[in-house]
Structure formats: structure tokens, C-alpha cells
């Protein structure tokens, strides 16, 4: 018997993002739809940034994870509309980002506090960071640099 969709979402929630492994691809909000088409499972993903090099790796990781659960017929497709937004990050994902040392995105356009010492005395070093989804900030209190997950 084919597993139900809640079960599949749960499995997908165990697939880590390849660049930020503390959150899952579901936390990141890039899995947009999962549906059965006969005995074929359709998984729809959306890219974070147009040129994000992790996109193909993510599709492969999803396929591998589902295969490991015994699902042989999986079709992964890409949907770009509506475009990905950081509003789709789960609350669990936001909390894990901060624990990991990455300040979660905020509509105000900058981090709320230093993920290490909670100081709010912060400075932006660069609008861009180590991956397309991050910017580079520094805490003026503990003097440590940290990543901020860009809000788009």
C-alpha cells in the first residue's frame, strides 16, 4: 500500500538542506507540493535563488531519500511561481538557524540580535555571504562575525 502524504512530508522533513544541514528542505519552504499521480509520486520544488547551485543537489537528495523508503517511482519538477520567499521558512527552521549561529530573516531587513550573545549592537559587513541566501554581519559586543539569512 502506498504511504499517505503526511508520512511522505514527514520523510521529506528529514532531508537536510545541503548547505545548512540543521534545517530540512521542508523547513526551508522549497517543497511546494507532494501528490500521487497513480503509482507515481509527484514532488514539486522551487529554487531559493535562480542560480543557487544547491538546487540540483536538493532534487537528488529528495529522490534518494524517497527511494531509501521504497518509493521507486518519483517525479521531481520545478515550479518558479510564486517565487520562493523567506516567509515560507518554518518556525522550527528559524529556531534551528539561530541555534546554529545564523540569524533568521526579518522583514525589517537585518538580524534582530547576535545569535551568539543576543546583543543588538550589530553592523553589516556585506550584503552577500557564503551562499546566495546569506549576508555577512558582525556583532559589536562579542566581536564575532555571523551569517544573516537574507529576507526576500
Amino acid at each position: 500500500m502506498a504511504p499517505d502524504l503526511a508520512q511522505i512530508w514527514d520523510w521529506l522533513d528529514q532531508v537536510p538542506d545541503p548547505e545548512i544541514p540543521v534545517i530540512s528542505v521542508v523547513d526551508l519552504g522549497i517543497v511546494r507540493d507532494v501528490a500521487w499521480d497513480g503509482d507515481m509520486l509527484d514532488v514539486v520544488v522551487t529554487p531559493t535563488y535562480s542560480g543557487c547551485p544547491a538546487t540540483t543537489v536538493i532534487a537528488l537528495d529528495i529522490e534518494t531519500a524517497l527511494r531509501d523508503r521504497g518509493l521507486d517511482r518519483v517525479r521531481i519538477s520545478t515550479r518558479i511561481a510564486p517565487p520562493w520567499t523567506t516567509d515560507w521558512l518554518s518556525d522550527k527552521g528559524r529556531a534551528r538557524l539561530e541555534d546554529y549561529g545564523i540569524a533568521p530573516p526579518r522583514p525589517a531587513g537585518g538580524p534582530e540580535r547576535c545569535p551568539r550573545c543576543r546583543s543588538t549592537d550589530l553592523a553589516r559587513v556585506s550584503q552577500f555571504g557564503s551562499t546566495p541566501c546569506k549576508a555577512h554581519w558582525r556583532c559589536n559586543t562579542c566581536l564575532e562575525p555571523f551569517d544573516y539569512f537574507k529576507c526576500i
Partner: protein
Amino acid sequence: MRDALFEFLCRMGDNTLVLGHRVSEWCGHAPVLEEDIALANTALDLIGQTQMWLGLAAEVEGADRSADDLAMLRDVWDFRNLLLVEQPNGDFGQTMMRQFLFDAWHLLMLQALTDSTDTRIAAIAAKAVKEAQYHLERSADTVIGLGDGTAESHRRMQAALDLLWPYVGEMFVADAVDDSLCAAGIAPDPATLRAAYEARIQTVMAEATLTLPDTGFAHQGGRTGRQHSEHLGHLLTQMQWLQRAYPGATW
């Protein structure tokens, strides 16, 4: 209409492809690490957008070519990018001036395209517009910072503006391709973007203490493919080298 649509999609995709390649030339060479990373990320966004534009172009053409074929196997005369984006990097200031002059246009164009009657184009534009907004924020800040910086950085930014400004006019000259797409509600008349563009440029240049050249002259021939500058051929020899030397190579 299919021919006009293909032409238009190549114009969008070739702009992001050629500029993306130019910007990627900085990888490992930028003045500071943060700028190196920022340039590489910008290039990555542009190449990603190219995948979408040229992917749709290939689909519309229906000639069994892929986005990669269009990018790697066409020659100079088939490219449809603005002359501005194929101009050499020069120094860091010149690269950022070119980026700003492009980003300001790109954002307006993408915003207009989000209302396209072609839902595929509207979807690509809605995706790309967020990235363009971010690029513009950075390039405008950098132009202001360097223009209103030291005497040396100011001099270099003014020289970059004087050099690149004559490449701006081409963005706003409509031809038969634009006319037919505009009539179908697929793309805006490029001339309608000009007022908002100039307003943005003037605000930033005033803050950057830079003077816009007093010339209406515009180099043309890139977006129509009639006559590219000599620089595009050199760029393609590097960008397309692998597919030319080893046709069909994959890995």
C-alpha cells in the same frame, strides 16, 4: 509572433548571460574578500536567470536546442545583449558603474514584465525581480560610496560614468520586435522606462557627487545584433572554449 518572442527572450537571457560572465571574471581578483563574494553571488544570480530566459527561448523556438546550446554554440552575430554588458570590467569602479547602470534598467524592466500577458514571462520576472532589487541596492550604494569617496575614487568613478553613459541610450530604443510584443501586452515599450530610469540615475549621481555627461549620443547594435563591439567576440572565445574544443562534452 513566435520569432519576435524568441528574439525578446534572447535579449533578456543574453544580457544576464554576458553580464554574468563578465562579473564572474572577478572571481578571485576583487579588492577585498567581501566584494569577491558579492560579485560571485551576483554573477550566480544572473547565470541562474539566464537558465530561465534561454530555457524559455529554446522552448519557444521549438528547434530542439537547449538553453546550453543557445549559450555555448551561437556566435557573436546571434547574441542580443546590450552593448553595455559586454564592455570590459576595467577597474572595480568601472565594473560597479556598469552594474549600477544595468541594474537600474533591469529592475524597471523586470517589474514591468511581472504584468506580462505571457504567464511564463511573468513568472520568470517575479523570480528575478527580487534578485535585481538586491543587486541594485548594492551597486547604487557602491557608486555613491566611491563617487563621494576619496579624490582618487571620485576621479575613477567619473571616468567610468563618462565612458559607459553613451551605452545607456540603447536600452530605450524600440524596434519592430518591441512593437509587436508591446501590442500583445507581453513586454513594455522600452521607451516608457526611460523617465523612471533617469530619475533614479540622477538621484544616485547627485549623492555620488558625479556629473552626468552632457551628451545624447548612444552606441547601438547590441540588442538587435546588428553590430556588437569587439569585446563580445573575445568574451565568447573564453566562455565557449570548452564546447568549441570538445563539442558535446558533458560531466
